């Protein structure tokens, strides 16, 4: 209160004292106390389910704490709704985007800050403001684009623009870099630095230690709902943080033997895809995928990687060209479907795990057989055997250390990392010959990343052909034996994994992107 102000040092921008929050039987936050100094960037890290998002949601008034106190600038505040949080100068970029997909960028930015009962006047002001923010921070997005049509990276920009548009003095970002390319991440960090310079306090949740070390001033580590450590960033290092997070030593470097490449499993020849709206998404893609190798597809998200995966998986039908999987040729004239592709030994870990990989309304044991519901081992001709399914689920969960080990629990109640492990387990368990993996570690904590990476490499060593799509260059560099770079639906380059480095890939991914942009 005033006492704090009177002793000279400015009060912390946010101070949390003894926050407790329970969801049913889960204690999501236990006696959490935290001080964030004004004008600093404060990192919060922790495993999946450690309680980071919950804590931030409490600050943002989305949840109400069971007990505890929030102080803003030394004043105790009662944040019972997002409106109160906004009034207190807090802005938040949510882990799962809070965007109305059918609205335009402008409408999304204006929502809640329309500046008058009629949209017209507010809209023109908002447009100018967006332009200003765009030039000031290099955050350009077409204000009239439909958000649902934008690539995730651009959606992320919209989220940040929303917060900036409201001139918040405290900005919370919950895993903002999960979907960004290194270049976009760098840019985001420049923005954060600029905000910091302007006195804005930033709270950053992330799973990427590199980022924490690069940009934050302080870092708080959470585990199991509690704060387990508080460090000045300058006084710590990646290994210490990783250990604090997971509670054990984590090996940050992946060890991998050179690939033993065998026969071609999947041959893609001049593949093109035109979507329902007539936009060409894939252009003349050709490559071979051999047994025993991991081919990484690098690219800024939204450049056709998703469509490539979906086409290879049989979800979309190619417009031209062909895919040869073992002896079956798939083309516009002889289309395939996901069930047929699976039967041919192709497994697919989809990028969008919430909407594709699991059925959130199913319990885990049902989601654990998604795509394999016709597997004869799971029951008779017409009926499924619940015991067999639960058993399968339990096996998968044990094999991949999915927590909690409760097949009956609703799929949506597992943290993202655990959902991801379950999906990977499911797709790897069917002993595929080809595995398509999209963004396997997006939003997943370090411990789990380590595990997932090792499993992917082990699968490769068993002779499976793996196609890995990731926007994490670190991941591509760590895993891929060969890297293909995609841009605007084309393959614009190929590098052997051991020769690739981040800078070079980044240039291939974006350099040409900028050329294209300039050309159009």
């Amino acid at each position, binding site marked *: 209160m005033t006492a704090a102000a009177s002793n000279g040092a400015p009060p912390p921008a946010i101070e949390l004292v003894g926050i407790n929050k329970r969801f049913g039987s889960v204690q999501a936050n236990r006696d959490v106390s935290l001080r964030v100094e004004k004008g600093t960037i404060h990192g919060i890290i922790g495993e999946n389910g450690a309680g980071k998002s919950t804590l931030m949601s409490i600050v943002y008034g989305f949840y109400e704490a069971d007990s505890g106190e929030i102080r803003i600038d030394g004043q105790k505040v009662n944040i019972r709704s997002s409106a109160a949080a906004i009034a207190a100068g807090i802005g938040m970029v*949510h882990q799962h985007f809070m965007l109305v997909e059918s609205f335009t960028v402008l409408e999304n930015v204006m*929502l809640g*800050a329309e500046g008058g*009962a009629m*949209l017209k006047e507010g809209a023109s002001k908002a447009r100018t403001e967006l332009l200003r923010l765009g030039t000031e921070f290099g955050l350009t997005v077409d204000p009239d684009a439909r958000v649902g049509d934008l690539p995730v990276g651009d959606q992320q920009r919209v989220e940040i623009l929303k917060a900036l548009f409201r001139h918040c003095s405290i900005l919370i970002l919950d895993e903002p870099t999960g979907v960004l390319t290194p270049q976009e991440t760098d840019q985001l960090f420049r923005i954060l630095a600029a905000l910091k310079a302007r006195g804005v306090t930033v709270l950053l949740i992330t799973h990427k230690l590199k980022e924490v070390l690069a940009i934050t001033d302080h870092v708080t580590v959470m585990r199991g709902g509690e704060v387990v450590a508080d460090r000045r960033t300058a006084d710590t290092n990646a290994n210490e943080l990783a250990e604090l997070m997971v509670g054990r030593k984590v090996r940050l470097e992946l060890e991998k033997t050179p690939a033993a490449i065998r026969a071609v499993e999947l041959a893609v020849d001049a593949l093109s895809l035109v979507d329902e709206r007539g936009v060409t998404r894939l252009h003349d893609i050709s490559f071979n995928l051999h047994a025993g190798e991991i081919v990484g597809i690098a690219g800024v998200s939204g450049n056709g990687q998703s469509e490539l995966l979906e086409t290879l998986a049989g979800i979309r039908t190619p417009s031209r060209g062909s895919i040869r999987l073992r002896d079956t040729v798939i083309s516009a004239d002889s289309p395939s479907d996901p069930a047929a592709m699976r039967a041919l030994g192709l497994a697919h870990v989809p990028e969008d795990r919430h909407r594709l990989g699991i059925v959130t309304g199913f319990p885990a044991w049902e989601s654990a057989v998604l795509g394999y519901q016709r597997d004869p081992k799971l029951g008779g001709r017409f009926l499924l055997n619940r015991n067999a399914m639960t058993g399968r689920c339990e096996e998968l969960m044990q094999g991949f250390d999915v927590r909690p080990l409760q097949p009956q629990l609703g799929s949506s109640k597992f943290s993202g990392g655990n959902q991801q492990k379950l999906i990977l387990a499911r797709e790897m368990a069917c002993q595929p010959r080809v595995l398509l993996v999209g963004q396997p570690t997006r939003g997943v904590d370090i411990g789990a990343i380590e595990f997932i990476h090792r499993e992917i490499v082990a699968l490769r060593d068993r002779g499976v052909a793996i196609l890995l799509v990731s926007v994490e260059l670190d991941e591509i560099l760590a895993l891929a034996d060969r890297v293909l770079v995609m841009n605007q639906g084309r393959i614009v380059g190929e590098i052997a994994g051991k020769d690739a480095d981040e800078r070079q890939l980044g240039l291939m991914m974006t350099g040409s992107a900028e050329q294209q942009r300039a050309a159009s």
Partner: protein
Amino acid sequence: MDDTFLLALSTLAATIRMATPLIFCAMAGIFSERSGVIDIGLEGKMLAAAFAAAVVAAETGSPFIALGAAVVVATLLSLVHGYACITHRGDQVVSGVAINIVAAGLTVVLGHAWFGRGGNTPDLTPDQRLMPIKLPGADTLIEIPFIGPIYYHIISGHSLLTYVAIAIVPLVWFVLYRTRFGLRLRAAGEAPAVVDTAGIPVLRLRYMAVMIAGLLCGIAGTFLSISMNATFQKEMTAGRGFIALAAMIFGKWRPWPAFFACLLFGFLDAIAIRLQGVALPGIGHVPVPLIQALPYLFTVVLLAGFIGKAVAPKALGYPYIKER
């Protein structure tokens, strides 16, 4: 030739009349459903409003007080719907069904208690009703060939509420797409969590939306009982609420397309009336029930042939649950 012209005019005039209650209800449905609340209860609200209007018109003699009473009654029913589905997260369809049934029963119970005669309300005199309005100059302009009769038959000669119905469409469009309220309302139907994180109370928005829906149903009911007719009669809405719902979906939850869908339904009805008993070229006399089925058949064909896929507001039907 002249006869067919006049027939066409009368068909179009009938189209507009038949479409009037549908337009109000479809717009009501748009408000409610764009905010995320399914409104199967259009029928019941319209029926209750028709009853209230007829009763109040008979008692006070003023059609405008009657209109006000109808609007109040329909809005109260909307509040019940809101209390069940918004506050208590009850099933929106069940709530709507319940409202329809209660309205069907209660109007007759009350009507019979007050006036006897099985729920019919007293017959209204023209000054207690909203009668067709002859627009200025209709009688003189009719002499002008072509334009005159169009003016006289189609543009002039409707109830005040019919003109209101037509005026309300651009108004609804404007509110939905050009105002802050509309922006928020549409967002509430697509992604209520986004609205909430933007600091806007979702539940209040949805309450406003269902209340506006009630208001519009109130006008629709008033039109039926004191404009188109001169009395309330049990179940006199005769399924129009459901047809309006279909028109709203047909119009993909958008005001103008829904408006045209209402006109289309009105038109098909008007045509079917005029086709009864007429020998169709090449087919001869078609059994009456089959002629009566034509509007429905046409709708199905149109829907299957020309109208793209209708996508409902994303959060439609889901109560907004804010976990605390």
